């Protein structure tokens, strides 16, 4: 690359508006959290598994499971985690914070959420946690504000 290179860098943006739809299945799941403070799973009767987050089709046997709602407990167990220590604009809370896989009582699959109320360096797999519901809705999984030790 020659030294009299005319190249320079221009600050810009990729900025576009979106509106995402949760669909009927996703809406029912989030509305139950928002209005009833209740977390629900969907059961595949063929695979004998209760899934969270909800999905209309079982990924493994490909059958329709969208009406097989099961009420779950709002307490569960941490099956895996990481402590996020880098800062990014897309983070829901300031780093460092704990992202954890939480398996609710009655569910077969854990899902990722935030755990608070534990010093980040003392976080352990196996921790019993309970859901803390958000005061204001964002119409997403963040209607559960976070999990904290049960």
């Amino acid at each position, binding site marked *: 690359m020659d030294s009299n290179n*005319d190249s320079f860098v*221009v*600050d810009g943006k990729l900025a576009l508006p*979106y509106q995402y739809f949760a669909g009927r299945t996703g*809406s029912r799941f989030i509305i139950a959290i928002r209005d009833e403070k209740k977390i629900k799973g969907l059961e595949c009767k063929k695979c004998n598994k209760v899934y969270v987050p909800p999905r209309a089709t079982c990924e493994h046997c490909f059958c329709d499971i969208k009406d097989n709602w099961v009420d779950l407990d709002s307490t569960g167990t941490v099956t895996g985690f990481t402590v996020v220590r880098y800062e990014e604009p897309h983070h829901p809370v300031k780093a460092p914070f704990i992202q954890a896989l939480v398996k609710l009582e009655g569910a077969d699959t854990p899902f990722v959420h935030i755990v608070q109320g534990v010093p980040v360096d003392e976080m352990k797999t196996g921790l019993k946690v309970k859901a803390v519901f958000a005061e204001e809705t964002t119409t997403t999984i963040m209607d559960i504000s976070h999990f904290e030790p049960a």
Partner: protein
Amino acid sequence: MSSGTDQKVTIADIFGSMESRVNPDGVKGVTCNCGYKITGEGGGEYTVTVKDGDVKVLEGIHSPDVTTTASAENWINITLGKLDATTAFTSGMIKIDGDMGVMGKAAMFFQKYRPPAPEVTIQDIFGSMESRVNPEGVKGVTCKCGYDITGDGGGQYTVSVDDGNVKVLEGIHEPDVTTTSNAQNWIDITLGKLDATTAFTSGMIKIEGDMGVLGKAAMFFKKYIPPGGEIEEQEELLMLPKVISVPQKFNTGPKMGKFLKGLIDKKLYANKCPECKRLQIPPREVCAECIVRADEFVEVGPDGIIQVLDITFFASPDPLTGESRETPYVSAHILLDGCKGHETLWHELNPANIKTAKKGDRVRPVWNENRTGSVSDILYYELIE
């Protein structure tokens, strides 16, 4: 289209509920007035004013930037999502005058309208029972079920089944089993909003007498359809509006860099293919026809003639800022002096020239006073009178 079943949805309610349905993200930083002329029965005139995120809905039309005209029936159907707005727009069912760009934003102002729950009465539930008999469910059954519905709008009824023959009587008459519930809970159970077993175990409803009969009673009737039509259609479906923005550092590379830097000195550089000699402006690294690097630059223009012009009335957000631009504007391909054939430069024309500009007219650039090496160093091209 089943607007007849939505008698509870009114234009007044749609506009009246708007202030409570504001989507803060959708109105952030927006200032505009949108007028609505809703014609026909139940219509009215309204103006939605948005002032930097602050939303007011006024009756009447007040200095609108854009005005939408539609019949009450069409507007209700659009609001309920039963009629596609674009289809309605395209086929002339609604008319829009004024700034189309504002209309694009208006779609994001409010959260979805949810019509008030249809008027469901205990009287209607029991009154419609005889017409909802499920012949399979009552075949060979003989029994009497009493219902004591308490509270506002309540009443007493007896469902009498005599070997498949069903009568619904007012009052309680020698029942085999009696169900007691308040009116609201019974409506919710009927509509499927409240689970009957839950209601029973939690004491919300009481049952006295032969429980076995009640098990059969669940099969006596077909589903109750409230006067407003299927409730299911009105199930809330969540929508999540987001502006996704990722800051970028765009590199010019030496070719585009040379061209952009030239603009600072009011110079326009094209690069030339060493083989076919064609020019590219803005320059690209390679000549696509000959697949060779094109390193030689020549100065062209700055004046030229209009080769192609597109007068644009449709505003879309500028992807670099998310902001919508003003319309109309003219997107033009200009054949600069020293260029030939398709070797045109893409830019805009002075909006003041829209009415008169035509292909072949001579134009010159109007330079921005603050030039930084970007597309906006040229404000636009204008006609040379």
